[in-house]
């Protein structure tokens, strides 16, 4: 049994890791590490939504907001205290606390799915509006001026811990993004295989049944929401470091909608799907950015509709031929999630 488990473990765990590493290693041959870092950041952001929407059934339009909160809180803390790495920690803790409060209010208030989507959307737009109105000198947190629609430029970015002046090169920053992305992916997989993750999937299937079984659904959903907020915040921190400026555009409807499109196109109910979706669509968008013939959003919209019609289960779903059960068969000595199966399949192709 042990050897069988190890065999299975090698197969579903190390194969994607090896393939992933190869992709990350060879990608810089085809594109600049600067662009690739952005793809990693967006992939992380996409996972954060893929986790709660694809597995918990929570459609949140506020992912852009948590991304933005993560970025802004990093910037504000690092301007005030220097210490980029401590700021990373602060930004994540702060965002997780904020999402926990926000999530608890919604889930303990028994907000329905549709209302949750609307409330998170409004939340994002309010923050966007608010930050756009903070141009005046009265909007200052410590020594950080919020700066309204101009945003906040010029803040300490990540460096090598031994020297303030040792900034990360594009290559090193790219590697950092890759490592964080892989760690986050492993973390999500671990969550989904745990008791908690299975209950989350069960909640997606039938909330009332799970409740009548004895699980506090509100608690589980709030926890999932917080984890997702933390991942989005991590992406936000990396984005701030990548761009060197944060603006209220992070809270725009555009970004929040894009995250949803990435997830749908990539494949709902998988972890790989949202990552692939974000990378493909961002690459398309960046490619289109150089021409003025067709509007970006027009193309995005067409791609979304085409994807929904041609691959109803997304890119990742299209690769995993048959519909697979969420925990999978126990006969193999362990239970797999739907996403694992997909990843397995993808890594074999």
């Amino acid at each position, binding site marked *: 049994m042990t050897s069988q488990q190890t065999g299975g473990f090698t197969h579903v765990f190390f194969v994607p890791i090896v393939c992933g590493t190869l992709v990350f290693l060879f990608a810089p041959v085809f594109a600049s590490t600067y662009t690739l870092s952005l793809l990693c950041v967006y992939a992380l952001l996409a996972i954060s939504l893929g986790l709660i929407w694809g597995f918990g059934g929570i459609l949140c339009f506020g992912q852009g907001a948590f991304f933005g909160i993560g970025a802004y809180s990093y910037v504000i803390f690092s301007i005030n205290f220097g210490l980029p790495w401590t700021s990373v920690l602060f930004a994540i803790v702060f965002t997780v606390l904020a999402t926990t409060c926000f999530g608890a209010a919604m889930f303990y208030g028994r907000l329905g799915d549709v209302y949750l989507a609307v409330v998170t959307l409004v939340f994002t737009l309010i923050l966007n509006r608010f930050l756009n109105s903070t141009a005046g000198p009265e909007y200052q947190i410590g020594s950080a001026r919020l700066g309204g629609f101009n945003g906040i430029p010029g803040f300490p970015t990540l460096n090598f811990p031994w020297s303030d002046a040792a900034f990360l090169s594009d290559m090193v920053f790219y590697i950092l993004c890759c490592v964080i992305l892989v760690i986050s992916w492993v973390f999500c997989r671990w969550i989904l295989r745990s008791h908690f993750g299975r*209950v989350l*999937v069960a909640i997606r299937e039938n909330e009332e*049944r*799970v409740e*009548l*079984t004895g699980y506090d659904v509100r608690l589980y959903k709030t926890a999932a929401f917080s984890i997702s907020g933390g991942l989005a915040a991590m992406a936000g921190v990396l984005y701030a470091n990548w761009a060197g400026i944060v603006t209220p555009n992070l809270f725009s409807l555009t970004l929040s909608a894009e995250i949803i499109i990435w997830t749908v196109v990539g494949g709902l109910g998988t972890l790989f799907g949202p990552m692939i979706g974000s990378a493909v669509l961002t690459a398309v968008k960046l490619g289109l950015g150089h021409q003025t013939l067709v509007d970006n959003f027009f193309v995005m919209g067409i791609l979304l509709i085409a994807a929904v019609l041609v691959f109803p289960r997304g890119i990742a779903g299209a690769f995993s031929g048959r519909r697979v059960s*969420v*925990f999978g068969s126990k006969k193999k000595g362990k239970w797999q999630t739907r996403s694992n199966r997909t990843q397995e399949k993808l890594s074999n192709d």
Partner: protein
Amino acid sequence: MVETVLSVEGLSVSFGGVLAVDNVSFSLKRQELHCLIGPNGAGKSTFFKAICGVVRPSSGRVWINGYEATRLPAHRVARLGVGIKMQVPNLLEGLSVEENLWIAARCRHSAREAEDIVESLMNLTGIEKYRTSLVSDLAHGHRQHVELASALATKPSILLLDEPAAGLSETEVDELSSILQQLKNQTAILVVEHNTRFVRMIAESITVFHKGRILAAGSPDQVFQNEIVKKVYLGSN
């Protein structure tokens, strides 16, 4: 050991002024197999929902295993030892049979115990063959068995079954009644059912609901001989 596992006092539930359950008092003893019958709309399902915390009672109190459960959220009531099979389909549709049972079993048991529970329940209800099938792909009869098994998977001390025999063939009804007989020494069972043949097979005692109130109660013979019961319920069937 508490002898009365479920005790309900003056329970009322109203939906916008309509009293679906009207001042009902009721109790269920350990290892009792009790049936609840009554015409459509009598309030049987609402009574169940009020006990397990899905619907808020407007007045009255509920005790489960000696603990007050009135107005507790549904998951807390479940943890006090109530397992319920609702009248409407209520399964984790996209998951397999064994996953459905595992989720329920794992709630209050260790991983190892949960696996044992899942195996023994699949064995009891005869659904091992379908362990990896999605419940949405199952035939109605098997789904009813999965519903029963997942209500049992938490090892409840009170099992509420709302129309477990609905839509089952005669042989399936016989199977179900023998399963319930086997369960009798593990848990108290309260069954809502329209199928009179089934009720006669299993019931030790019967309560008749009518317009939210208890119309009659007693042994099957007493109840089925009762003239008023014949008139409002059996006659109309």
